[in-house]
């Protein structure tokens, strides 16, 4: 950011010197201006070529968005030079406009469904279709090289279209997507000659078998990363071996669970240059010779920094991993069902670890080891193993997180699932680690108060938002009153994303947030007792945010209608799986999803999504339906 400010200062002083009349665009950066010819741009302004060169140093899209607001010529120059385009909500803008605006686009990132779709709160068929985007880009931006999609519906047709349309296509990364089968993957593998990245992260794929892997042509040697960890079926070992042998640039390989332990050694031998490895299942029985071979193969991975997979890791195989531990910066043990002593054994050797994902089997004692040994830790995620439901003794408490916050000075991102918590712990954590950027605490028992004092966790979260001035993302849980949200509204000025469940007392809660959190971009709420008043009072705020999700709250149908009428640049969606036959204004809605958009109403809503545009007689006169 400092370098950009310097750039601005330099440019600004120069332009003032040249005495240019610059004007500020008041509209959102998505307003598109008619393009100006190069001669106009050259005339009495900073030469286009010079601006272009300067802008090439501006990487972050946020900065580029700011740049594009300065004046017309900056807008024009910026848009012609932007290569990586990010659209946080696929319904916020039309694919056609994006395609037209950025002629040099090489990479497109899109996000579709709201985040709570990850937890089954968004019914199937809601939307988030990739097809319109792929179609538009195929027609207008054939030089596109990379497509990254998150929470979108991607069909085999989409994948075939990508394969057929972008001759230089290099990179496909799908996260939490669904709607396609392994046939679509085969199309990408077989047709994209320059393919470098093929990553399927936690997708729901119609798995028709492991044949897709054999579709990589024998001539393809360009692969840099391959992630098929979310697929179920077995791939042919020989296909995989041959692919690895001819991919000298392969840096990241994430296998699926069906790849058994006995074949791992043979794969690793063919890819000693790996930087990231996701193993398959780690539980088959190996004889001593096989174990020794595997140990050796792992020790040959001199560049290995990241390890994941490790499904069903057996304790007796932990020594096999010893050799890679000292180099590891990222370790994902969240599928490894090993107990605390084994985890300690492993983690005490990982002195360079920056990112750790693990299950609550690590217990407080294990986290204490982490605090002692992993001084470089930046990100920690502790997931529930379900062991507490089994009534087996897993002692993971708030103390674990306190230890890590004490010992790991660089810790800035936490996701922690725990059965109960205390205010005192939160206060300690905040004192220890004011550098948190992301703090997500999930107290799994809804409405659980501080278990020592029986008080709400208001004071604890107050400490967090007061001390952690750079907090960008926060998830709260446990028993919380409106006070907690008052604190958040007052202190969390840099907060961009907030997730709330089972909290608060009244509309004041929402009001505090919407009127206080200046940087708020995404707010998602479930099962909280407020609704209409605060929503309508703070309607203008919603246009400054990407989206608001509310489910199982007290929002009435009438308020949704009112909001829709009042705010034409918002799409207000009411999502009711069981809509009543008649809908009086006072009736509650199950879910409401509100987002700003310049694309107008969606045309692909399913029957269970209501928007005001569906019932024109309700009163839509000022809205132009495009």
């Amino acid at each position, binding site marked *: 950011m400092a370098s950009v400010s310097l750039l601005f200062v330099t440019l600004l002083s120069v332009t003032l010197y040249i005495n240019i009349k610059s004007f500020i665009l008041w509209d959102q950066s998505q307003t598109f201006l008619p393009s100006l010819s190069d001669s106009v741009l050259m005339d009495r302004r900073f030469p286009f070529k010079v601006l272009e060169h300067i802008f090439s140093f501006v990487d972050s899209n946020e900065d580029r968005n700011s740049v594009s607001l300065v004046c017309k010529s900056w807008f024009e120059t910026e848009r012609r030079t932007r290569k990586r385009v990010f659209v946080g909500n696929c319904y916020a803008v039309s694919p056609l406009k994006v395609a037209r605006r950025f002629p040099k686009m090489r990479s497109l990132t899109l996000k579709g469904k709201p985040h709570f779709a*990850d937890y089954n709160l968004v019914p199937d068929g809601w939307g988030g279709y990739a097809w319109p985007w792929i179609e538009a880009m195929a027609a207008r931006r054939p030089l596109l090289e990379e497509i990254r999609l998150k929470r979108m519906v991607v069909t085999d047709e989409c994948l075939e279209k990508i394969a057929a349309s972008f001759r230089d296509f290099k990179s496909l990364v799908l996260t939490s997507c669904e709607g396609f089968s392994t046939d679509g993957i085969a199309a990408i593998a077989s047709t994209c000659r320059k393919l470098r990245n093929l990553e399927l992260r*936690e997708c729901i794929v119609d798995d028709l078998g492991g044949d897709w892997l054999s579709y990589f042509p024998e001539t393809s040697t360009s692969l840099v990363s391959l992630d098929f960890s979310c697929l179920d079926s077995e791939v042919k070992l020989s296909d995989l071996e041959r692919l690895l042998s001819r991919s000298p640039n392969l840096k990241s390989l994430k296998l699926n669970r069906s790849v058994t332990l006995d074949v791992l050694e043979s794969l690793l031998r063919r890819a000693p240059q790996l930087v990231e490895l996701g193993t398959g299942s780690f539980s088959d029985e190996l004889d001593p010779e096989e174990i020794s071979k595997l140990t050796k193969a792992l020790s040959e991975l001199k560049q290995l920094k990241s390890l994941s997979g490790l499904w069903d890791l057996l304790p007796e195989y932990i020594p096999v991993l010893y050799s890679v531990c000292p180099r590891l910066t990222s370790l994902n043990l*969240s599928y490894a069902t090993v107990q605390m002593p084994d985890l300690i054994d492993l983690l005490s050797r990982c002195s360079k670890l920056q990112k750790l994902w693990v299950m609550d089997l690590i217990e407080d004692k294990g986290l204490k080891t982490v605090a002692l040994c992993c001084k470089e830790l930046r990100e920690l995620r502790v*997931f529930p193993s379900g062991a507490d439901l089994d009534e087996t003794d897993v002692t993971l408490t708030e103390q674990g997180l306190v230890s890590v916050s004490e010992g790991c000075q660089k810790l800035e991102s936490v996701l922690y699932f725990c059965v109960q918590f205390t205010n005192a712990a939160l206060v300690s954590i905040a004192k220890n680690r004011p550098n948190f950027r992301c703090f997500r605490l999930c107290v799994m*028992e809804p409405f*659980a108060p501080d278990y020592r004092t029986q008080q709400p966790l208001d004071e604890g979260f107050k400490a967090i938002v007061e001390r952690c001035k750079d907090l960008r993302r926060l998830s709260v849980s446990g028993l919380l009153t409106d006070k907690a949200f008052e604190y958040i509204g007052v202190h969390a000025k840099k907060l961009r994303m907030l*997730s709330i469940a089972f909290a608060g007392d009244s509309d004041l809660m929402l*009001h505090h947030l919407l009127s206080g959190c200046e940087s708020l971009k995404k707010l998602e709420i479930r099962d909280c007792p407020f609704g209409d008043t605060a929503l309508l009072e703070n309607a203008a705020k919603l246009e400054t945010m990407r989206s608001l999700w509310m489910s199982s709250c*007290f929002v009435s149908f009438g308020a949704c209608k009112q909001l829709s009428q009042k705010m034409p640049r918002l799409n207000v969606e009411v999502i009711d799986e069981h809509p009543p036959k008649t809908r009086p204004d006072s009736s509650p809605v199950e879910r409401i999803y509100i987002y700003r958009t310049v694309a107008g109403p969606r045309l692909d809503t399913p029957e269970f999504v209501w928007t005001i545009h569906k019932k024109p007689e309700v009163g839509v006169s000022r809205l132009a339906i495009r």
Partner: protein
Amino acid sequence: MITELDMGKAESELELGLGLSLGGGTAAKIVKPGGGGAWGERGRLLTAKDFPSVGSKRPADSASHAGASPPRSSQVVGWPPIGSHRMNSLVNNQATKSAREEEEEEEDVKKKAKDDETKDVVTKKVNGKVQIGFIKVNMDGVAIGRKVDLNAHSSYENLAQTLEDMFFRASPGTIGLTGQFTKPLRLLDGSSEFVLTYEDKEGDWMLVGDVPWRMFITSVKRLRVMKTSEATGLATRHQDPKERQRNKPV
């Protein structure tokens, strides 16, 4: 600056409580919406009273109140907020763990003399194991798939009822997802136009109902409500694998 909101009017309107949103599946109890749009019939907003174990360690016997139990935190839709891939992994872990433990326990029971207490311990423990898992349900001719929480059901009857409600709406004269007026069906006894089938871990499609319920929920991957005409030749558990291969539906 609003310091106090006028809650009086809002409160009287909200008096009857709010519909309990249950996402793509069902949980403990759902009160079907009757006519008239009154909120009370749609259930309640979950409050602290619904989670009696709050503030203390979860008591072991809260799990054994089968029918009348308040929703446990694991039965509320989308809670705790864990992604579906991780959830399914947990189900697998629980399943293999419980399968192993059940085997061990059954051996123990056989070894000891027939003791009522021992039996109770076994039953209690089995009830206490909560498996978390939503699976997808698709129906022929319906574009929108749904999700169902197997854990919230105790038997095939239960499950069939939920699916019938989901896709057909049991109350006469209502229009369900299929867009037609339909009579209630019997998905399990082969007497209707549709049958219930499932895909198991090996990828085979089988008719639902042949195996014990508990075995079913550990091996099912997804469900499909299939037209009876298409369901001929589906494997049942008792066929040997070779026959199964020959009979695989196209």
